[in-house]
C-alpha cells in the first residue's frame, strides 16, 4: 500500500482516480503443500481486470476464490504464474508493499484502537503530516456516516458499523486495487442489501479497481461489472452478469447462477449469424429456433437451457394424457409475487415460474396444460459429460 497514494491529491478530498489499476493474472496456480496427488486449489487462472472495474469471483465453496484473492493480496505465494499491476510485477512484492487494500470477512478491526485510529493506521504508516491524516480520516468517516463514532472502540459498534469502519480503513488508503473477501456475510439480510448499494456507490465514485469474493449470487449480480464463475480452481466463465445469466458457458454455470431446466435435445439445423449461432431443435413436442453457444458443432451433444420464467403455460382443456406439447401440473406453490409449478412433460419434469398471477388463475395439481417457452430466451449449450 505504501507506494502510490500520497501524490494523488493535494487537499484531503479524494478525486476521481487515475486510469490505473489494471490487474493482469497469467496462469496463476496455487498448490498447497500437502498430498502430492492433491488437486491444486487454484489450477491456472488467466484474468485481465480493467482499471476501475468491479469484478466478482463467484463459485461454490472450496473452488479457490479466497485463495485467488489472497494471491492477489500477497498473503499466498503462487506456485506458478504471474501477477502484474499496471505492468509491474507483484509476485516479488510482500503484501505490505502492494498498492492494494483488503476488506476481511471478519472485519479484522484492531480491537485496541479507536475507530479513528483504525482508519488512520495506514496513513500514519506513510508518515503523512498529522493534519493531512486528520483530514483524510475525517473525510472517510464522514462518507461512511461514522463521524459520531470516531472515538468508540470497535467492540462498541454494531456489525454493520464495524463493516463500515473496515471499509473506511481500506478506502482511505486510495489503493489501486480493493480486495473484498465475503465482506457482507456476517451481516443480516437487510443490512447486506444496504451495504451492497453503498459499496457499489463508493467504488463508482472513487473508481478503484475491485475484486470481490462471494458465494451469494444476488450480491454478485447486483455489484459486478463482470462476474468470474469458478469451479474446482478453474474459471468457467468471465462475463457481465447478464451474459452469465442468459448465455452461460456451461451447464455448471447455468445451474449455479439462477435456476434452469435442462432439456435433452439434438440439433436439426445450425446457422451462424452476426449476433451468434442459432440452432433449430425439437423440444417439448415442438420445434424451436434458439440462440446457441459458439462452441457447438452440427453433431455435438447438446442440452437446452430454459429458465423457469421463460416457460409459457397455456390452457389445454381437451388434453387427457401427457403427450406432445401437453403436460400435467404435479405441484404448485404460491410465493406471493409468483407461482411455481412442477410440470410433467414428455421431456421430463419442467419447473415453471409465472409472475404476478391473477387471482383465481392458479393451476391445481392434475390440471393439463400446453407447455412451451420463449425461444429467444432459451440457450443451447454443450452437454456436460
Amino acid at each position: 500500500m505504501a507506494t502510490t497514494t500520497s501524490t494523488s491529491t493535494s487537499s484531503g478530498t479524494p478525486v476521481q482516480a487515475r486510469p490505473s489499476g489494471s490487474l493482469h493474472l497469467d496462469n496463476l496456480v496455487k498448490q498447497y503443500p500437502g498430498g502430492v496427488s492433491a488437486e491444486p486449489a487454484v489450477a491456472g487462472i488467466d484474468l485481465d481486470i480493467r482499471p476501475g472495474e468491479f469484478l466478482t469471483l463467484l463459485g461454490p465453496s472450496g473452488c479457490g476464490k479466497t485463495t485467488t484473492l489472497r494471491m492477489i493480496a500477497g498473503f499466498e505465494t503462487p506456485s506458478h504464474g504471474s501477477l502484474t499491476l499496471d505492468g509491474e510485477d507483484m509476485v516479488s512484492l510482500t503484501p505490505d508493499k502492494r498498492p492494494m487494500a483488503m476488506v476481511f470477512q471478519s472485519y479484522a478491526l484492531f480491537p485496541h484502537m479507536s475507530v479513528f485510529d483504525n482508519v488512520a493506521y495506514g496513513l500514519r504508516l506513510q508518515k503523512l503530516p498529522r493534519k493531512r491524516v486528520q483530514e483524510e480520516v475525517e473525510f472517510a468517516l464522514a462518507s461512511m456516516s461514522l463521524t459520531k463514532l470516531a472515538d468508540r472502540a470497535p467492540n462498541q459498534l454494531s456489525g454493520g458499523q464495524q463493516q463500515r469502519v473496515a471499509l473506511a480503513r481500506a478506502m482511505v488508503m486510495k489503493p489501486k486495487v480493493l480486495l473484498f473477501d465475503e465482506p457482507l456475510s456476517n451481516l443480516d439480510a437487510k443490512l447486506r442489501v444496504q451495504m451492497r448499494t453503498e459499496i457499489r456507490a463508493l467504488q463508482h465514485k472513487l473508481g478503484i479497481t475491485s475484486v470481490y469474493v462471494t458465494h451469494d449470487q444476488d450480491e454478485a449480480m447486483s455489484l459486478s461489472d463482470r462476474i468470474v464463475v469458478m469451479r474446482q480452481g478453474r474459471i468457467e466463465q468471465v462475463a457481465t452478469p447478464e451474459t452469465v445469466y442468459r448465455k452461460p458457458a456451461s451447464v455448471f454455470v447455468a445451474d449455479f447462477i439462477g435456476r434452469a431446466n435442462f432439456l435433452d435435445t439434438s440439433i436439426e439445423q445450425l446457422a451462424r449469424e452476426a449476433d451468434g449461432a442459432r440452432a433449430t431443435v425439437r423440444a417439448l413436442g415442438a420445434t424451436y429456433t434458439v440462440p446457441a453457444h459458439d462452441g457447438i458443432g452440427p453433431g455435438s451433444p447438446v442440452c437446452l437451457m430454459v429458465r423457469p420464467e421463460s416457460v409459457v403455460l397455456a390452457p389445454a382443456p381437451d388434453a387427457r394424457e401427457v403427450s406432445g406439447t401437453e403436460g400435467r401440473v404435479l405441484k404448485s406453490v404460491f410465493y406471493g409475487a409468483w407461482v411455481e409449478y412442477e410440470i410433467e412433460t414428455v421431456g421430463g419434469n419442467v419447473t415453471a415460474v409465472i409472475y404476478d398471477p391473477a387471482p383465481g388463475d392458479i393451476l391445481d395439481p392434475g390440471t393439463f396444460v400446453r407447455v412451451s417457452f420463449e425461444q429467444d430466451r432459451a440457450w443451447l449449450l454443450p452437454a456436460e459429460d
Partner: protein
Amino acid sequence: MSLDTLPAAALPAAPPPRRGSRQGGARMDTVTKLVITAVVLILAILIGYPLVRILTQAFGAEGLETLRNIATSSANRAVLLNTVVLGVLVGAVGTAIGFAFAYAQARLDFRGRKLLHLIALLPIVSPPFAVATAVITLFGRSGLVTNKMLGLDYNIYGLTGLTLVLSLSFFPVAYMNLLGMLRSLDPATDEAASSLGANRWKIFRSVTIPMLIPGFASCFLLLFVEAIADLANPLVIGGDFTVLSSRAYIAITGEYDVASGAAYSLVLLLPGLLVFLVQRYWAERRSVVSVTGKPSGNITLLRSPLARIPLLTVVLAIAALIVAIYVTVFVGAFTAILGVNNTFTLANYRYVLSGIGSDAMFTTTILALIATPVAGVLGMVLAWLVVRKVRRGRGALDFLGMLGLAVPGTVLGIGYALAFNKPFIIGNIQLLPALAGGGAIFGGALAIVMVYVIRSMPSGQRSGIAALQQIDPAIDEASTSLGASGLRTFRSITLPLIRPALLSGLTYAFARAMTTLSPIIFITTPQTKIMTSQILSEVDSGRFGNAFAYCTILIAIVLGVIGLMNLLIRDRRAPARVN
C-alpha cells in the same frame, strides 16, 4: 524450582495450527527473515551449543565408560532404580494431590475456596529449599512434630522425605493443569449423563475421570521428570538415597569428573525430552475434549456429605501441612535454632542482610531483572514466529524454544559449564570470551543471565502462543495490507493484543529466574553470588535459620517485583475484545 514446569503445564498446550493461520503462505519480508535468523542464532547459543557439548562429552571415551558403568555396576544400577522409583512415586502422589485440590476447587461447595486456591499455589513462589528445610525441622530426627511432640525417633531422610517434599513442591503443576481441564469440561456432558439416569458417583466414574485421563497422564509424566531432574532436594533431604542428579553433582563437584557428570545427566535428558514430546501428543488429543469457549450451562456443585467429608478432610490436611511449612520458614527465620533453641533473634537476618548475603540478594535480583524482559520479549517473538510467520519448520522452532524447559536444570548447568568455561575459538579467531566460571568476563554473570533467559523464556513462549491463537489472523493481515511491515505489525498490533500474556510470561520468568538452582550451581563463581546457591551452602552447613531468612527475603522480593510489574504493565484501557 517448583516453577520449572508450571507455565507449560498451566497454560493450555497449543492446539494444532488452525487453517486460519495461513500467513505462512505469504512471501516473508526481509525484516521477518532477519528476526528468524537472529532468534535461531540466539537459541543455538543459549541451548543448542551447551547441549551439543554435553553430548560430545558424554559420548567421549570417559563418558562412554560411565554410561557403560551405569548399565553394569550394581551401585550405579541402584542409583538408576532409585531415580525411577522416586519419579514414579512423586508422579503418582503429586498428581493425586493435585487432582484432589482441583476437584475440590471446581466441584465442591465449601467456604474458603479462594484461600485454598492460594495455598495450593504457595509452593510456586518459594525457593528450592524452603519446603525441604521446613520438613526437616518439623519431621526430622529432632523434629518439632516427630520428636518434640510425639517423641518418635523418626528418620525423614531418604525416599519418604524426598517423596513428601517433591510432591508438595510440584503438585501445583498438576493442580493448575487439572483445574483448567475440569473447568473446561462442558457441563452439558454431565447434564446429558444425568438425564440418562446416571447419579453423581456414576458420572464421576464414567464421564469425568475418563475425560481427564490424558490430563492425569501428562501430569504424571511432568511430575516424573521434575522429580528426577531435581537436585536441591536430594542434596538436602535425600540422605543415603542417591539419585542420578545428585550423582552427577557429586561427580563434578566432588570428583572433578566432568565427563561422568555429563554421562549421568544424559540419562536424565532422555526422559525429559521424551515427556515433552508425549505431552504434545496428548495435548493434541486433549484439545478435542476441552473445547474452549463459553460453557453452555452451570456445573452443579456437590453438596452430598458422603463425597465432601472425605475429600475435604484430605485436602484440608494437606493445606494445613503446607501452611505449617511456610509458618515454619517464617518463624524459623526469627528463631535461633527452631526446635532446639527457640529464642527470638534477628541474628539470621543480620547475617543474611550484611556482607555476602546482601551481595547475593542484590546480584541475583539485578541479574533476574536483566533476564526477565529479555526472556519475555524473546518468548513473545518466538510465539509470534511459530503461530504467524513460519510454516515449514514451525514445530522445530517451537521445540527449540521449549528445550529450555524440557532439559533438566542439572543437564543445562553442566552443559553451560562445558560450553562457556573456555573462550569459544574457531581456528585462531576467538568468537566468544569465556562466559562462565571464575575467569569469565563479568565474573561469570553473563552465563547466569543466559541460563535465566533460556530457563524462563519457554513460559512466555507458551502463554504467547496460547494468546496468539485466540487472535484472528486477519487482524495481522489487515495491518500488512495497510502497508505495515512484519515487525511494525508485531509492534503496534500483535504486542498490544497479547499484553496480558506478556505480563504473565514476565511474572513467571522473574519468579523462575529467582528460584532457579540446579543449573546455577555448576556455573556460579566467587565473584557472582546467587541467593539460591547461598541457601544451599547455609543448608549444607546446617544453618537453617539463615536459610529460612534467605527464603523469606527471596519470597518477598519475588512477590514485590511481580506486584510492581503488574502495576507497570497493566492495561489502562478498557479490556478490548479480540475478534
